[in-house]
């Protein structure tokens, strides 16, 4: 899967799981998700579960940081790293 494909899948997953009234294609790779989509702790939990289920990765406790969830770029880099 290419980097762009991965980012697109993450965007689609976020829009679906958070019931966002947004087009995945309009989400920029480097925009701040928490500020622009009012993502709170409930949403973050959904994103974690979504990433684990969709990409077969597992978050470790020490991985959690606000920066990780800040942008699509950061999430995609994390998924890539976990998938080795």
């Amino acid at each position, binding site marked *: 899967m290419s980097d762009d494909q991965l980012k697109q899948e993450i965007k689609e997953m976020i829009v*679906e799981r958070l019931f966002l009234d947004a087009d995945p294609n309009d989400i920029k790779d480097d925009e701040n998700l928490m500020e622009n989509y009012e993502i709170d702790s409930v949403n973050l939990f959904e994103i*974690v579960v979504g990433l684990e289920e969709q990409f077969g990765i597992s*978050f470790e406790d020490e991985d959690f940081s606000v920066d990780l969830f800040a942008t699509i770029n950061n999430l995609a880099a994390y998924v890539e790293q976990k998938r080795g």
Partner: protein
Amino acid sequence: MSGGEERLVTFESGGEPLHGVLHVPAAPSGNALVFCHPFAEEKKCAHRTMVEAARACAEAGWAVLTFDHRGCGDSPGAFGAHDLADWREDIVAAVECAARETSARVGLLGLRLGASLAAQVAEERADLACLVLWEPIIDGERYIKQNLRRSMIKAMMTRHEGGEDSEGAAAAAGALGDGTVDFDGYRVPEVMREQMEQIDLTDPPPSFGGRTLVLNIGASDSVAEPMQQLADAYAAGTAAAVRQEPIWQRIGVIDADPIISATVDWLRQQ
């Protein structure tokens, strides 16, 4: 409420008086449901939907008894003083109360942990009219892990926003001392945590033979594999998916009509 009646009821379980509300239909179908509520913060978030569901079922002719377990809501006792065995006893007592008050055949409707407890009670009560499981906890170990993770994320966000989270850090580690764990501010005693961890609704396979609906609630229109497997494990099980924001995760106005409609439609076919 159209023509029916809602009245407070009190019934005893384990020597304690439990608080409930009985929704009596104007045109009874001869069936009743006991609504088994979810756990801790999820109960608080889902309360409005539970009441709306009870009213909708009553309009469809099903009497519904909603109640609070020992140590929860308006029923007496401290939250941590009871365990899942006590709460299964409460459900049995509620079934008997509903049967006594309505002379109807009683089934169980449960949400999340309440659905899991309902499923466990149904294994001992073949006489139940039916079983409706809203997003049941199938794997208790995963449920615990996810709740601890939720606490950790909340603590992380609190720190990010400049707040204090003295218990959050401990919650992130999973323990608050004495084997208790933090479920969004509810201290879960060790014995209850262990009972939750042991929940596995598919092993051994369920033996309840009555009509069973497993309702998968979430972002997808299709039934998730574990929910389908659970439904398939029942002799008369059906699974359905409802695309709906999880009603147990957030306090606020959520239109739960998709869940309620799916349930009422299914009940009308019974």
